[in-house]
């Protein structure tokens, strides 16, 4: 699929594409040659596509970076050699990349002779549709002077990429594409254009100490130069902004996805004569254009998601230019969660004092809320056969929940806080769990257990572990080693043995790393063996200081993807399976409440296993205190077996 569209898609063809794929095609039409990314929803797929096609186009390089700081500096390095470079990250990735980005933006991303160019595609996630937090990363562009594009739909997201590179190259600025889940995961019709020429030419770095070495006086000169560079972009901004004219004295300023909600909300309210200033570039904001738009209006509403970025900017401009219109934004448009057309209707109506006939909807909403009480929640959970679920079972069994702090982290295991497992006490950010555990360990006598995935370990976990050892923290750290960045859908990391180009790589020994850092007590245990895991945890609890248990078992989905290809050819589908003898099941709750595998089914007086969902990990067989789970292996050599 990727190759068909991205590599072989015919110019001028019109196709329905999901936002991420449309942007990937736009990048190839622009001639991007270096792409680096740490996976993160909503933009993960773009990296996945590049990983699959990287070897199809000469000179195209893709890297799964170990974290966003590594990713953005790698992209800057390639751009400094004159290569059009891209880095992608989710909103919180910006926090990790920001340290490096602050200097890259200052120095400028191009080569000393004006080649290259750097684009960041940052996936915001209002409503936290696939994230552990909600933040407004738009303010980075204000702080670091990034040329900030905000496409409102898939077509613009694809079409504006060449210009983003043109501006980056021409003015030595970092271009910042801030999209949201609603663009990444929205399908629309786009037109394909010709791919750029890929013939694998090399870049060249040209030395220039004042540009690349950020120390006084160069850093101050570059800061001053950055203001001048940003100033030059202003005339270009008009090409991305759009004024939809109207005779009303009430106008709207908006940008990005909320524009689509706004247009439909205005039609819903029969306010089709309301002028709209739709910003395509929100940093820098085009001063004259806004002033012209605003000077004859009485009221202006700014429609945007999360914190007021545009609102603050236009209020500043209005004050400087003595605009008399009443300007409002967050007073009427909520500043958390995702917007939708209904929210925008309500916001506009409240601002304009338009009475909305909401009684029938309110009645419906009330009924809905009432019925919702009987709907069981369905948060995301561990897959059937997930090694992390198995570890959590043993962890609960072998620790004193009331007197233990469980420091959670980002990865599949973050889902352990959902009931009925409920074994996470805090979630901060990548490696923040262990980080906070170190501090807590100094000031409490409670037992502290920290969880960390292998991808997190190589992302930011190593320096935090060093800090824990250096300061002699009294913590048991579990490294959940499932070989992949599983949460995002099974992406390779330094622990996977394969990289973004599909080339084999050495797998570091996590045990040796911990040992060499000075952890005195390290064990490697298979979580599918709950008895051994439980015994190991009990042993760990008898020790003091920093202890590490590496819970090692490949992600079930990844293992099956690879093994099934072989096994389904050789063996009948259900040659090795588990089932529950109803007479032996005592409904004790061990499997259903403490393990809670999604392949289990609750019947009136016994549990059963849904063979369609069961992956035969065997953990329920191991933990059942009544020996009610039966393991059956059919000899495939028997007649009818295969």
């Amino acid at each position, binding site marked *: 699929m990727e190759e068909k569209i991205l590599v072989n898609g015919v110019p001028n063809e019109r196709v329905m594409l999901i936002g991420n794929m449309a942007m990937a095609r736009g990048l190839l039409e622009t001639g991007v040659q270096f792409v680096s990314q740490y996976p993160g929803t909503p933009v993960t797929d773009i990296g996945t596509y590049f990983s699959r096609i990287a070897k199809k186009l000469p000179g195209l390089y893709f890297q799964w970076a170990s974290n966003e700081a590594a990713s953005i500096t790698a992209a800057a390095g390639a751009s400094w050699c004159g290569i059009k470079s891209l880095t992608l990250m989710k909103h919180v990735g910006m926090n990790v990349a920001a340290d490096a980005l602050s200097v890259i933006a200052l120095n400028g991303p191009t080569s000393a002779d004006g080649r290259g160019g750097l684009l960041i595609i940052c996936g915001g996630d209002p409503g936290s549709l696939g994230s552990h937090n909600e933040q407004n990363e738009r303010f980075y562009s204000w702080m670091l002077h990034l040329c900030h594009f905000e496409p409102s739909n898939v077509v613009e997201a694809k079409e504006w990429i060449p210009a983003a590179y043109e501006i980056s190259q021409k003015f030595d600025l970092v271009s910042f594409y801030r999209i949201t889940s609603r663009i990444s995961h929205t399908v629309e019709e786009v037109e394909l254009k010709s791919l750029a020429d890929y013939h694998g030419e090399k870049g060249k770095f040209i030395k220039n100490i004042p540009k690349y070495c950020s120390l006084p006086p160069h850093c101050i000169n570059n800061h001053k130069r950055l203001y001048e560079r940003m100033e030059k972009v202003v005339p270009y901004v008009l090409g991305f902004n759009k004024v939809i004219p109207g005779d009303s004295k009430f106008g709207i300023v908006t940008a990005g996805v909320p524009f689509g909600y706004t247009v439909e909300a205005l039609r819903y309210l029969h306010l089709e004569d309301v002028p709209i200033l739709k910003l395509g570039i929100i940093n820098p904001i085009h001063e004259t254009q806004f002033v012209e738009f605003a000077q004859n209006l009485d009221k202006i509403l700014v429609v945007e998601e999360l914190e007021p970025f545009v609102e603050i900017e236009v209020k500043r401009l209005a004050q400087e230019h003595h605009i008399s219109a009443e300007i409002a934004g967050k007073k009427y448009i909520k500043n958390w969660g995702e917007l*939708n057309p209904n929210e925008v209707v309500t916001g506009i109506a409240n601002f304009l004092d338009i009475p909305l006939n909401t009684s029938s*909807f309110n009645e419906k909403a009330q009924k809905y809320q009432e019925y919702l009480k009987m709907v069981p929640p369905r948060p995301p*959970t561990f897959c059937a056969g997930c090694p992390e679920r198995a570890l959590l079972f043993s962890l609960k069994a072998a620790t004193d929940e009331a007197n233990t702090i469980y420091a959670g982290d980002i990865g599949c295991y973050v889902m352990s806080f959902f009931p009925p497992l409920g074994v996470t006490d805090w979630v901060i950010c990548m490696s923040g769990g262990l980080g906070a555990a170190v501090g807590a360990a100094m000031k409490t006598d409670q037992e502290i257990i920290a969880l960390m995935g292998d991808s997190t370990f190589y992302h930011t976990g190593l320096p935090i572990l060093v800090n824990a050892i250096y300061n002699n923290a009294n913590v048991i750290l579990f490294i959940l080693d499932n070989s992949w960045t599983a949460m995002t859908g099974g992406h390779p990391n330094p622990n996977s043995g394969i990289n973004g180009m599909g080339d084999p790589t050495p797998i570091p020994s996590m045990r040796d790393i911990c040992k060499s850092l000075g952890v005195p007590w390290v064990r490697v245990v298979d979580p599918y063996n709950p008895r051994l895991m439980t015994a190991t945890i009990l042993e760990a609890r008898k020790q003091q200081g920093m202890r590490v248990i590496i819970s090692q078992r490949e992600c079930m989905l990844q293992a099956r993807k690879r093994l099934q290809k072989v096994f389904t050819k050789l063996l009948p589908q259900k040659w090795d399976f588990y089932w529950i003898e109803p007479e032996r099941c005592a409904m004790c*709750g061990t499997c259903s409440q403490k393990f809670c595998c999604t392949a289990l089914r609750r019947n009136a007086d016994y549990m059963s296993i849904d063979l369609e969902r069961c992956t035969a990990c065997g953990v329920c067989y191991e933990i059942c205190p009544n020996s009610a789970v039966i393991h059956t292996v059919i000899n495939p050599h028997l007649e009818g077996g295969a």
Partner: protein
Amino acid sequence: MRIWNAIICGVGGQGIMVFKRILENAAFREKLKGGNIRKIIGAEKHGLSQREGATDVCTRFLLLEPDEVYDDLLLTSALPFYGDADLAIGVEPVELLRNALYLSEKTFIILNTRTIPPCAVISGDMDYPPLDTIINAIRDISGSPHIIALDATALAIEQLGNALHTNMVILGLALATNAIPLKLETIKTIIEETIPAPSDNLRALEIGLQTGKNLLDTS
């Protein structure tokens, strides 16, 4: 001018994305052939909702009469208004109830009655509500008289030996209600072109279609 909205709800892994894309690709094919569908926007959910969590997708078509002038601004939002779904499909019963704010009197509702118990039900902390209760709740919230509730999964298993064909049976049921502004032939073509093992899926579609017609005749 008319905007047609469909929402499809289910559990991560039930293939609602594929379902939606069949509708979209068929609509796009008709658009290219000069039909009255002029613009299509579909919204998907990826990420956390894949892990057996609740998930929902929607797709929106802009339809114009021949004398109406196309404007790109006639359809701009990927999300519909509450109550504005013309077609609502629940591949899993409580998941449709979870999205019931999108339903209204005009909504054609197809409910697959095959349940998937979430963790809270497996653990015994909550009961899965009885089907009658779910259907009554959906009827009460929406006020819609057009509700088909049927175990499409059982049909797929009985007739085709594979639960994977559930969604095609449901699509057939939906087509029987004439609630989808697409030609049957276009949908068949798209299934042939884009879905692996199209012949079984086309049979599933036909089974759904016939079952739907029979249901409508007898009601």
